[in-house]
C-alpha cells in the first residue's frame, strides 16, 4: 500500500526510537518504493508546500524527511543536478544528528553518502551530455571527507558503539570519488589523516567489505606512486579477503596484483587464471614467455597488448617483467652449455639474435651485467676475456629468492 507523508514521518520516528540504523537507511534511500509513492501523493511538492510539516517530529528529522521528498521529486523529473543539491542538503542535516549519536547510525550514513555520490555521478554525466560544466562529484568527495571527520570526533561512545567503526568505509568511498574524477593526489590528505590516528581499532577488526575496498584503493595508490612492495602487500590482502562471489572486484584487484607478483617472481598458476578468463587473455602470453625464456614471444605479446596495457597503466610494469624473461633466456643458454661455469658473452649475444634482437655484443654484455647486479644471475664478467663466470652453485637463483625484488626495478 502506498504510504503518505505522515506515515513516513512515523516510520522515521519509530526507526529513531528503536535505534535501527539499517531501517533508517532504507527509509532515506530514494530507490525505496515509498520514494515514488510520496512524490505522487504530495503532488509536485516544494520546500514551501512542505514547510508546514516542520516541527512534526524531532529536529532535524522533520527537515530531513522534507529534503528526502524533494530529492525524490527531482529524480522523478530527471533533474539530477537539483536532486544532487537537495541530497547534499539532506546529508548536511543528517550530519547534525549524526555527530550527537553513536555507531548505530552508520548504516544510514553510508547509505546517504552512497546516494549522494550516485546522484553526483548522474548530475555530472547529464551535464556532460548537454556540454555543461559540473563538478558535483568533487563536491560529493568534499562531503564524504567531512563525514570522515564526523566519525573520528566520536570521543564519547564506548569503542564497540563508536562512530569510528565508519572510518574505513568512508575513506574508501572518498578514494572512490577522487579516483573517478582523476584527482588521485587529493586522496593523500585523508589517507594521511587516517594513518596518523592511533585511537581506532585495527583494520582487521572492521567488516571485510570495508577492509577490502580500503586495501584495494591503498594498493592502487601505492601502485601509481611506484611503491610496489606496499602495493603488492595491500592488494594481496584485498584479494584474499574479498568475497569469492564478488568476481568482478577480484578481477580488478588481480589486474594489478598479477603483474606485481610476476615482478616478485611468483607466476599465477593455471588454477588461478582459469577462474579469470579476462586476465588470462591479457597475461597468459607473458607468463608462458617467462616460463620458456622466449623473449621474442614476450615482445610480441607486448606489442599486441600495448593499447590495453596503456589504458590500465600497466605497460611499464610489464616492460619491467621482461627482465624475468631475459633471465629465462640466459638460463637456457647456460643449460645448453651443460651448466658450464664459464660461458662466453658471444653465446648470450647469439641467443639474443635468435630471439630477434639485433644488438651489438656490448649490449649483450651489458644485459648480463644488469641481471647480475639485480640478483637474477650469480657470477661476474671478465670483460677482457669476454667471458661470463658463473657461480658453481645456484648460478640462476629462483626469481622469487631475490632479497628485495622491488627495490631494483
Amino acid at each position, binding site marked *: 500500500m502506498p504510504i503518505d507523508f505522515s506515515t513516513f514521518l512515523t516510520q522515521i520516528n519509530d526507526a529513531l526510537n528503536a535505534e535501527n540504523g539499517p531501517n533508517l537507511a532504507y527509509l532515506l534511500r530514494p530507490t525505496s518504493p515509498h520514494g515514488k509513492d510520496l512524490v505522487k501523493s504530495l503532488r509536485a511538492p516544494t520546500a514551501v508546500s512542505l514547510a508546514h510539516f516542520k516541527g512534526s517530529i524531532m529536529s532535524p528529522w522533520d527537515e530531513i524527511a522534507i529534503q528526502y521528498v524533494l530529492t525524490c521529486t527531482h529524480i522523478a523529473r530527471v533533474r539530477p543536478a537539483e536532486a544532487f543539491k537537495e541530497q547534499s542538503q539532506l546529508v548536511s542535516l543528517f550530519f547534525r544528528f549524526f555527530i550527537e549519536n553513536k555507531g548505530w547510525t552508520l548504516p544510514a550514513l553510508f547509505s546517504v553518502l*552512497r546516494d549522494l555520490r550516485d546522484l553526483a555521478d548522474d548530475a555530472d554525466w547529464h551535464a556532460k551530455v548537454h556540454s555543461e560544466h559540473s563538478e558535483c562529484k568533487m563536491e560529493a568527495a568534499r562531503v564524504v571527507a567531512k563525514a570522515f571527520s564526523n566519525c573520528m570526533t566520536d570521543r564519547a561512545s564506548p569503542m564497540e558503539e563508536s562512530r569510528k567503526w565508519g572510518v574505513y568505509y568512508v575513506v574508501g568511498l572518498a578514494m*572512490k570519488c577522487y*579516483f*573517478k574524477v*582523476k584527482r588521485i593526489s587529493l586522496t593523500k590528505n585523508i589517507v594521511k589523516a587516517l594513518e596518523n590516528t592511533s585511537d581506532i581499532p585495527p583494520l582487521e577488526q572492521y*567488516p*571485510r*567489505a*570495508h577492509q*577490502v*575496498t580500503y586495501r*584495494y*584503493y591503498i594498493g592502487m595508490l601505492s601502485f*601509481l606512486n611506484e611503491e610496489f612492495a606496499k602495493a603488492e602487500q595491500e592488494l594481496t*590482502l584485498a*584479494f*584474499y*579477503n*574479498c*568475497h*569469492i*562471489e*564478488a568476481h*568482478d*572486484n577480484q*578481477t*580488478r584487484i588481480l*589486474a594489478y596484483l598479477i603483474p606485481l*607478483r610476476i615482478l616478485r617472481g*611468483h*607466476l599465477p*598458476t593455471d*588454477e*588461478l587464471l582459469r577462474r579469470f578468463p*579476462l586476465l588470462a*587473455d591479457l597475461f597468459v602470453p607473458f607468463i608462458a614467455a617467462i*616460463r*620458456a625464456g*622466449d623473449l621474442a614471444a614476450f615482445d610480441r605479446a607486448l606489442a599486441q597488448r600495448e*593499447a*590495453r596495457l*596503456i*589504458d*590500465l*597503466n600497466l605497460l611499464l610494469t610489464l616492460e619491467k617483467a621482461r627482465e624475468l624473461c631475459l633471465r*629465462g633466456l640466459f*638460463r*637456457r*643458454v647456460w*643449460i*645448453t*652449455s651443460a651448466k658450464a661455469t664459464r660461458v*662466453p658473452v*658471444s*653465446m648470450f649475444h*647469439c*641467443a639474443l639474435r*635468435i630471439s630477434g634482437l639485433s644488438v651489438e655484443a656490448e649490449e649483450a654484455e651489458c644485459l648480463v651485467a644488469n641481471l647480475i647486479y639485480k640478483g637474477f644471475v650469480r657470477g661476474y664478467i671478465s670483460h677482457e676475456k669476454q667471458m661470463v663466470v658463473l657461480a658453481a652453485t645456484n648460478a640462476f637463483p*629462483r626469481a*622469487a629468492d631475490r632479497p628485495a625484488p622491488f627495490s631494483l626495478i
Partner: protein
Amino acid sequence: MSSASTSKPADTKAAAKEDKPKESRQAQLGVLEEDDEFEEFPAADWDDGQTDLAHLGGSAPGAAKSGGDNLWEDNWDDDSIEDDFSVQLRNELTKTSKGETAMEH
C-alpha cells in the same frame, strides 16, 4: 586513472580514425574499463570460508606453491625444454663455441 581519455574535439578526422581500435580495446577490457569502478559489496562482512583464504590450509596468503599456496608458482624453471628454439640455440651455440675454440688455437 590515466588521463588518456581526455578527448579533444578539435581534430574530428583524427578522432574518427582513433575511434575504432579504442572501441575494440574497451570491449576487451570488460570490467577493467576506465569508467568501471570497484563495486559495493552486497554484504558488509563474511567469513574465511567465502574467501580465497579457505584454500590456503593455514599458509600465508600469497606464499606461492613452495609455501602452500597453489595460486602462485615460484619455481618454474624447466631444464628440459625441447622446442625449435632450443634446437636453433644449440646449433648456433655449437657453431659459436667451435669458432671460439678455433680462434684460441
